[in-house]
């Protein structure tokens, strides 16, 4: 049932991706190759001119010391003293900490209305889907093959309003088929879940529900099942089987609409659902008898809560759910302006305090957690900014400002440590790690910028005058 994945014959010509090329090559340091950095490193001659940064003169000292630390990691890796992942994690963390808007990277603007959902395919991290409030689904190519630093991510194709089988109302969630890019799923307020064939852009199957669909998710580690968990306005979580084409079972337990669902990235049968009745439930879909646990924010201290509020994860609607990449912890966010971190195997509230996380969204909030960094970061849309928190200590690192209106969704690209976010201002913004400027060489004159002289001041002397 899965169509052909997007291959080199379908998309633009691409060189085959080697597994080793998951990181961009490190920028050149002092004119030498990164692997020989210890030998060729020279002290940078000029400070970086970054007028937007708070203290430009502070950066000289910091930059030199950061380079020295980086080269320490590289030589340790080379000599076998350090674990190979340590360098990768350190560099990924440094890149995430320097996320900013970049004038060289843009995403083509297709949507005419707000963007509700973004998803990047997990196979290569190259193609991105976006679903908008106008019912339009757009597919973007994030890869920069133009050999120029300035690049706009092009929209390859879209399922628009004029498509006969397109969604009629707002698309709430889009997701790639986790195993290849031949298929994707989208769910919408028109009470349907559609399974699309990417190459022909025709729906291969449609599931109809009684209530509007708020969220759906398909497990990325599942090998024994092809279930899509769908959260709708009804309190029952529906599981749709792609192999048979029907809703195979229903999970009962919630009392109000289901706003977010997420499969665990660690166990293929564990599902977490979040509902407007303030409860988050963990299910094993093989069990017939009900949920595994209901997450309790007070960890069982009954007298702390009033009697009606027993076993609630938040004091308001629970809007968003996200597992960390190893599946050991679960982050939930609620309209009581709190974010909570849970141990996903015991259901215990780890009591990490993130402070007030402003959440005014009436429907689901899609936030992202980084992958492959040493303190993991959570990127949470807060109004028109994106707040970046460290997941395990609750510290607010920075607020990414750039959107003109409320941000609804964001997604993290783990290979290049980039963040893409979309919101009601119809823009998708790409947050790129700030690049180090190439360090100019002391000795050679070729790196110095050639000054453009006014021709009136140019020296018009020529040796032929003497002879002529």
């Amino acid at each position: 049932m899965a169509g052909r994945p997007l291959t080199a014959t379908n998309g633009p010509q691409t060189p085959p991706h080697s597994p080793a090329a998951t990181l961009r090559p490190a920028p050149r340091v002092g004119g030498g190759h990164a692997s020989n950095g210890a030998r060729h490193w020279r002290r940078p001659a000029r400070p970086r001119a970054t007028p937007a940064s708070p203290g430009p003169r502070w950066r000289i000292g910091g930059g030199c010391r950061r380079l020295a630390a980086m080269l320490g990691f590289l030589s340790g890796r080379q000599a076998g003293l350090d674990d190979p992942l340590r360098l990768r994690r350190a560099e990924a963390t440094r890149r995430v900490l320097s996320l900013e808007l970049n004038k060289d990277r843009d995403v083509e603007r297709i949507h005419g209305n707000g963007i509700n959902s973004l998803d990047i395919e997990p196979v290569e991290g190259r193609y991105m889907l976006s679903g908008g409030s106008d019912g339009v689904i757009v597919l973007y190519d994030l890869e920069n093959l133009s050999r120029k630093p300035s690049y706009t991510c092009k929209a390859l194709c879209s399922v628009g309003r004029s498509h006969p089988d397109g969604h009629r109302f707002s698309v709430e969630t889009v997701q790639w088929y986790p195993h290849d890019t031949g298929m994707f799923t989208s769910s919408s307020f028109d009470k349907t879940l559609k399974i699309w064939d990417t190459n022909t852009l025709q729906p291969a199957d449609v599931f109809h529900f009684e209530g509007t669909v708020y969220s759906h998710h398909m497990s990325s580690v599942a090998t024994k099942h092809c279930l899509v968990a769908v959260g709708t306005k009804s309190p029952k979580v529906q599981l749709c089987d792609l192999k048979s084409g029907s809703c195979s079972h229903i999970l009962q337990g919630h009392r109000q609409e289901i706003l977010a669902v997420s499969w665990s990235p660690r166990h293929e049968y564990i599902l977490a659902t979040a509902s407007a009745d303030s409860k988050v439930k963990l299910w094993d879909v093989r069990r017939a008898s009900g949920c595994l646990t209901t997450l309790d924010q007070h960890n069982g201290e009954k007298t702390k809560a009033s009697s009606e509020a027993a076993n609630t994860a938040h004091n308001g609607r629970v809007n968003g759910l996200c597992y960390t990449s190893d599946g050991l912890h679960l982050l939930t966010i609620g309209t009581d302006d709190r974010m909570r971190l849970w141990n996903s195997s015991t259901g215990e509230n780890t009591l990490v305090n993130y402070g007030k996380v402003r959440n005014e969204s009436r429907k689901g909030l899609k936030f992202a957690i980084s992958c492959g960094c040493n303190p993991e970061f959570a990127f949470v849309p807060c109004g028109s900014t994106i707040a970046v928190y460290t997941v395990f200590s609750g510290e607010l690192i920075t607020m990414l400002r750039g959107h003109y209106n409320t941000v609804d969704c964001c997604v993290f690209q783990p290979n290049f440590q980039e963040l893409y976010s979309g919101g009601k201002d119809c823009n998708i913004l790409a947050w790129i790690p700030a690049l180090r400027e190439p360090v100019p060489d002391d000795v050679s004159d070729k790196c110095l910028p050639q000054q453009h002289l006014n021709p009136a001041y140019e020296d018009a002397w020529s040796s032929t005058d003497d002879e002529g």
Partner: protein
Amino acid sequence: MVRSPPLPPDVIRARRKLPGGRHGPAAAGAGGPGGLPGCPGGPRGGAGGGRGPAAVEAALREAAALFPRRLLGAALPALVLRHQLYGLAGDRTAVDRHLNRLRDEGRVRLLHLGLGGDALGVVSTEEYAQKVLQAVSGSPREGLVRRFLEGAVGACPLPGYDQRLLRQLGFGDADVTQLVAAGVLTVRDAGSWWLAVPGIGRFVRALVRGRRALLGAVRRSRHRELLLAELGQRPPPALGLRYLLLDLLGAELLRSVPTASGPLLRLAEP
């Protein structure tokens, strides 16, 4: 020649500090302007750079010292609000965890004060017991209160009690009525009560009035922001300016932005 600010311990993680910092007035009150101009942010917390339990203990002592004993007389124990410690000690999670540990050891009590869901007051257990007994000394309820303090308060570290638990500990309905009349318990729900301090009403009223006055002053200013120095020129509120500012900043009703003329207080977005 510009002296570069101290680098964080892990050099490769040179963090970009928040432009609108989360500094409490402790950084300003500790002397000097709120950071060098252009400097992204000074060291966190006025209680020293450490982030562990030592910092939380120091913050507790500092905040307890700010509690206005002179105004509220000797009737109340030194009450610190939990969110005031966030501003002083810097790391919210560390403060929460340390307070939970102290509560489980029995050295402090966390009390609900009626200010809203998350606002908990922190008192040291001995001082709480001493002040409660002082408040009921001479009245016929003294014996009952003493029994309650030794039995229930010592046994159970939670801020609330329900009917079943109290019955288990040996306090019937008539006893509970007497305790509520003495001010040691406050009604929360039918059949459940919060632990309370007798005479806390004056403190809560002064706190609410002070909050309203400060927030009103900031709201009425032209751009809804005020320099700390300007606030200092107004008549000081009853509970003390620093106590109230720590409370408002910790509860995230106000935000403090370091500027060249000292910290600027801005209303947090609603």
